[in-house]
């Protein structure tokens, strides 16, 4: 695959990938776009390691998933190293999120009810229409673990939707 062909692949895949990262980051568009761009660069530079065992889009999502959790881990480490109290950091994080889009608050609020793994798997399964096998490849979890995360995430979301309907 040459650069032009990869450019077409970027055009084709940017929307689902950016949407997944945007929702995973709770609506932080700057962060999700940075990770999406790094994902494409990483995929391009390591094209030779793509074995063709899965779809190329699945491989791309796997890279993005790892990049996202690397960023999360890095933030957590920085938080540990700094002397800033956790409460203050929460404010800083919230401020940076405020810069991003706020037109999907209902969705982000609902997704915030889920644990990180549940959120990623629910988004892949329901929003991006990925199969259990694809999700298993992306996350590196067993298909049975994926199924149980979907089941738990679904009941958490349903509970949230039910409570919101009642209000």
């Amino acid at each position, binding site marked *: 695959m040459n650069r032009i062909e990869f450019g077409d692949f970027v*055009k084709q895949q940017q929307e689902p990938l950016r*949407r997944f990262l945007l*929702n995973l980051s709770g609506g932080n568009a700057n962060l999700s776009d940075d990770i999406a761009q790094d994902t494409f*660069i990483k995929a391009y*530079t390591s094209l030779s390691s793509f074995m063709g065992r899965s779809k190329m889009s699945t491989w791309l999502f796997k890279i993005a998933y790892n990049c996202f959790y690397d960023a999360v881990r890095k933030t957590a480490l920085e938080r540990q190293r700094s002397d800033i109290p956790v409460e203050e950091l929460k404010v800083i994080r919230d401020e940076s999120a405020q810069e991003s889009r706020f037109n999907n608050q209902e969705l982000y609020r609902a997704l915030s009810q889920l644990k990180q793994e549940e959120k990623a798997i629910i988004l892949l*399964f*329901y929003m991006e229409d990925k199969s*259990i096998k694809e999700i298993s490849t992306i996350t590196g979890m067993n298909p049975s673990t994926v199924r149980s995360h979907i089941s738990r995430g679904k009941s958490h979301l349903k509970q949230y939707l039910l409570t919101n309907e009642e209000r």
Partner: protein
Amino acid sequence: MRKDKQVDQFLKAHKQQIDGEEFNRKTIERLNYYHPIEAKKKRGTKWIVNLFAFICIAIFVLSGGAKTIFDAAMVVFSDPRTIHSIANYASIFAMLALITGGIIYIEEMAK
């Protein structure tokens, strides 16, 4: 696995349409500064595999394994009526396995 209707409807209703013009331009522009990295050949482990393969074959030949298989195969092929003994069957299977293993090994090394 079936999708839950309520959850599916909620998430699909909030599925965002994201404009990619600016993102595509920036990403493709950035791609100009990078090149795909060529796959590295695993030379580091290749000599270890070769060494162990050589040692195994040498031990096998020196302990008379090859001669036993060869003799048994010769008996079987010289007189097909002798294919009733389990030892003869085993020698044929062992020989076929060795040939297959050898072919796979050579193909793997050629990659």
